[in-house]
């Protein structure tokens, strides 16, 4: 009897004794964004029993992968809503995965959207385009949530900018997102260039000019081969803004043919 009581005491002791340690671990996990969002009953219904048990055993990644692959079989059978639901669950399980947000949004806005538009079985083309826009919006919301979870990676800002540009046809919003994306050290060089370009398209020539000048003078990422592109853009803006020669970076040379925009 005595030994059983001692044994129970010994088992309770560590959880009490390590409370400060546990708190510090908890704190670290929150900071590093380990684990994932809590799983709701609805999500467990989407998953099914087997995967729910796998989740209980701590195999978040595998469950997410499985659902991801499954969502693609829904894609092949044109079951958009199931695909959408599963992608939601997948990103809830692993909100730290850039891939799931990125590719998920691509599926929604580009693949599903397009498929809905050209699906003229039951709908007119106008109705199809309306449905496509619903998917564009879904993708936008999706990416915004993704950015909330991953505010320190350039990928999702870039994708959102691309979405604004290609699908919403809004260069101003696109420029904003490209600007945010370009701030990160691991963003590719072309992102800042796209930022400048979209600023110009948006009508903010002044900002665009500043943008290109910044690249020309301070950007260390651009490879020598791309300098030509930057030079061309600057020339164009300087022409459009009619900047006097004394203030230009590239003074006008009458002999050089000017490409029209």
């Amino acid at each position: 009897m005595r030994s059983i009581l001692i044994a129970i005491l010994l088992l309770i002791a560590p959880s009490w004794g390590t409370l400060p340690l546990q708190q510090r671990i908890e704190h670290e996990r929150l900071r590093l964004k380990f684990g994932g969002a809590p799983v709701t009953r609805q999500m467990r219904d989407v998953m099914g029993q087997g995967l729910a048990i796998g989740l209980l055993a701590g195999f978040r990644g595998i469950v997410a992968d499985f659902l991801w692959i499954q969502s693609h079989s829904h894609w092949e059978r044109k079951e958009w809503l199931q695909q959408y639901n599963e992608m939601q669950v997948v990103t809830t399980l692993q909100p730290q995965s850039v891939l799931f947000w990125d590719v998920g949004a691509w599926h929604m806005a580009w693949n599903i959207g397009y498929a809905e538009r050209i699906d003229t079985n039951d709908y007119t083309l106008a109705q199809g385009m309306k449905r496509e826009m619903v998917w564009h919006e879904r993708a936008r919301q999706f990416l915004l949530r993704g950015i909330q979870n991953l505010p320190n990676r350039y990928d999702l800002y870039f994708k959102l900018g691309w979405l604004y540009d290609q699908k919403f046809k809004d260069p101003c919003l696109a420029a904003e997102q490209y600007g945010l994306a370009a701030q990160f050290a691991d963003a590719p060089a072309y992102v800042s260039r796209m930022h400048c370009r979209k600023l110009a398209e948006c009508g903010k020539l002044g900002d665009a000019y500043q943008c290109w000048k910044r690249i020309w003078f301070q950007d260390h990422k651009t490879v020598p081969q791309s300098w030509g592109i930057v030079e061309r853009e600057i020339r164009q803006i300087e022409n459009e803004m009619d900047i006097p020669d004394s203030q230009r970076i590239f003074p006008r040379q009458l002999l050089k043919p000017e490409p029209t925009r």
Partner: protein
Amino acid sequence: MTEMRKEWVGFSPRRIWTIALNTLTESVRQKVYLILILFALVLIASASFFSQFGFGETGEQEALEQLKFIKDFCLGAISVFGMLIAIVGTAQLIPNELESRTIYTILAKPVRRFEFLLGKYLGSALLVLVSLTMMSVMFGAALKFKGDNYLRMAHESVRQAQDAGSAEDLVRQAKRIHAAVYDADLVKALVLAYMKLALLAAITLLVSTFSTSMVFNVAMALMIFFAGHLVGAAKEKWAESALARFLLALIPDLGVFNLADDVILGSTSVPWAYVGKVAAYGGVYLIAVLAAAHFIFAEREM
């Protein structure tokens, strides 16, 4: 001979090591174990034959996606098989000793009960370590095989790039793939995975000190394994239910040992400090569990 032996009656780490090595040898030579570990190794190796193409938008995304699948799958397999070996391997130790009466021959020598228990545990921990190492090496090989494939494809497309801009981008993509393959943080995930398995083995040993039914031991250990993953959620409901409080008090939070998923996502690098903290947490529990096992076993008549 008498004079030399008198000094060996004290607490002897050498004796513990002898029992540990003996336990390891006996376990490794069992057919069931050999089949299990072989199956595990084949399964992990098969990951390198996963389909080459994924569902991504670009080649880089496909590669990263496939690598994620491979890593999740292999680490999952290592977890599952490691768990089987830890729980089933440990659950049979003391019942087998009682059945074959070897325990009587050992305790009839000047061997302390604690030395016996610790030696048995150490043997089990070594078995898990050996198994985990083998599986990790196979995983590393499979990952490298597949990863190098993707890297070769990535470098090929860099060579064939149309212009400087896309070449630069492709180089960056290749770097990303490289980082996904040669990720040192995977080692940290394996270290914590081993820590969790060592703790599970100790818990199984504790259960086997008061129950000699293998089935009960395994079932109980599995229950505690699942309960350990609920502790994380129980912490939030702590005020609400007595069950949550009970779980929290007795059962370690096993969820903190699961580093694999987060390492594979690769969004942040894992500091060794975190690994150290979790290892310390596990260490405290390990000592407590083994101490509890000692107290029960020392009072046990056979």
